[in-house]
């Protein structure tokens, strides 16, 4: 028997965000003079990577997709009030306990739909994306003909954009490394199907299951 953990809207948001951020990373790093220097543009199919115009255009398109899906998700959260993913008081402490439990030094606490560390990781990622979008839009304004965004503004927008790129990259890598932990792997298929096994949910997300008001929200298989 399975239970729905991610609605199709959430899955859509996840994958479109992932795809656009991957493209933004690649084309964003292409805005640094790196692909020619490190000869990435000599790899098959990547000759375009050292062309600043090509990577800039792709960066803009991918940014539009990210802004589209971020706005979508923001309004989705506001309207549905699905707050399970948002951080709560005590999450930091609970995250420490979860980390200790990974190395056998503590017992994993009872979890809700998301683990405390997942809620914190979401907050870091969402904040980074928001900072990148805002500073990115300032950079778009700066590139417009006739615009005169003051140097301190464009300078700091650039620095903040670069810093949050690194923070986001680290959080994406950490997100992927989470699959090194065996207990997390059962969640992977749910990013496609939306569903996880009810037994697993009872074991790992007991508070979520207990909190459900009726069996209506449980799957039938």
């Amino acid at each position: 028997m399975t239970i729905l953990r991610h609605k199709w809207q959430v899955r859509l948001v996840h994958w479109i965000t992932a795809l656009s951020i991957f493209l933004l990373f690649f084309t964003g790093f292409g805005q640094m003079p790196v692909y020619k220097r490190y000869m990435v543009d000599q790899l098959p199919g990547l000759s375009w990577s050292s062309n600043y115009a090509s990577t800039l255009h792709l960066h803009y398109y991918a940014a539009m997709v990210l802004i589209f899906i971020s706005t979508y998700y923001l309004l989705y959260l506001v309207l549905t009030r699905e707050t399970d993913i948002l951080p709560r008081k005590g999450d930091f402490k609970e995250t420490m306990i979860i980390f200790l439990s990974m190395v056998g030094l503590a017992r994993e606490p009872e979890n809700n739909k998301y683990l405390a560390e997942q809620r914190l990781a979401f907050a870091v990622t969402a904040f980074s994306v928001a900072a990148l979008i805002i500073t990115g839009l300032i950079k778009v304004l700066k590139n417009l003909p006739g615009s005169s965004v003051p140097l301190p503004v464009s300078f700091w927008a650039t620095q903040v954009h670069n810093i949050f790129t690194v923070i986001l990259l680290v959080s994406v890598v950490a997100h992927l490394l989470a699959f090194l932990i065996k207990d997390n792997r059962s969640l992977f298929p749910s990013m496609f199907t939306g569903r996880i096994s009810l037994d697993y949910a009872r074991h790992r997300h007991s508070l979520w299951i207990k909190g459900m008001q009726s069996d209506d929200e449980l799957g039938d298989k």
Partner: protein
Amino acid sequence: MSMSRRNFIKRAAIAGLAASVTVSGAAKASAALNSSDEYASIIDLTHCDGCRDVDIPRCVSACRTRNEDRFPQPEKPIQDYWPQTKHEDWSDKQDLTDRLTPYNWTYVQHLQVEHEGQTHAIHVPRRCLHCDNPPCASLCPFGVNEKMPQGPVIINPDGCFGGAKCRDVCPWEIPQRQAGVGLYLKAAPKYAGGGVMYKCDMCYDLIQQGQKPACVSVCPNNALGFGKKDDIRQYALQWARDNQGYLYGETENGGTSTFYLSSVPFAAIHQAIMEQETDGKPGKPGMPVGISNMLNEPAGMAKAFLLAPAAGLLGAGLSVYKIMTGADEHDYSEA
């Protein structure tokens, strides 16, 4: 968790109010971005004789003297740009005055230009044109290259990492790189960075004091002029009309703060440069006519940035409406 239609409308209204406050704030911020009071220069090729009476044209000498304190002093030995086996070092060629280098920010191209069956001796002073919408400044990954309100485009040598992107995105490849100097030495000089980029800064310190750039002041033939950009443009346009002459820099790369005047077409001058001057390396720029600014297309795309959030809001509104009114319920029983 089936929601009522009324609930949906209430929540949507609150979200709409918050969004409109944000958008109006952004609109006010962007409306404040505007400036004028720019300077520009004239380079009149009908007056420039290339200072053939002296070894180094006077504008070039004046520029070198004026800026020699700012020339790079590299630390040696200089490492290659790993994984490549080269680096750009002009420190042993500081005397070169027949191309742009980190030690020579302006030079004169001496050309024989064919036009309508005649050969014209044309001398073309070359340096940064100080574009209106400079890709070198807009796209600097470190944000240390700036278009000043007075017109000059200035690279901050203290923040430059020497990736040479500014040179790659400049239609004339004007900025020149010197390895072994600058910020990158403090990080991992073998693996990242390449030095500092150097070019004309329109003698920014002088124009702030109400003076003309050094090259303009020493020109004995009035081939170089300097003034308020509106006046300079007006003069250039009038000159072109009165003399059936040609302009360069007015529209190139989306407009610049430099107006070249010539009695022979710049297409012919460009061809002469390509045939007689260039050596396949940056520092001996051509004059491609009507070249467009690589930021024009992104500027067109920028409008679509307004559509993206609107589409996101619409999409979210529709899909949440389905969830809240129960139309999306099938998702719950999906296997």
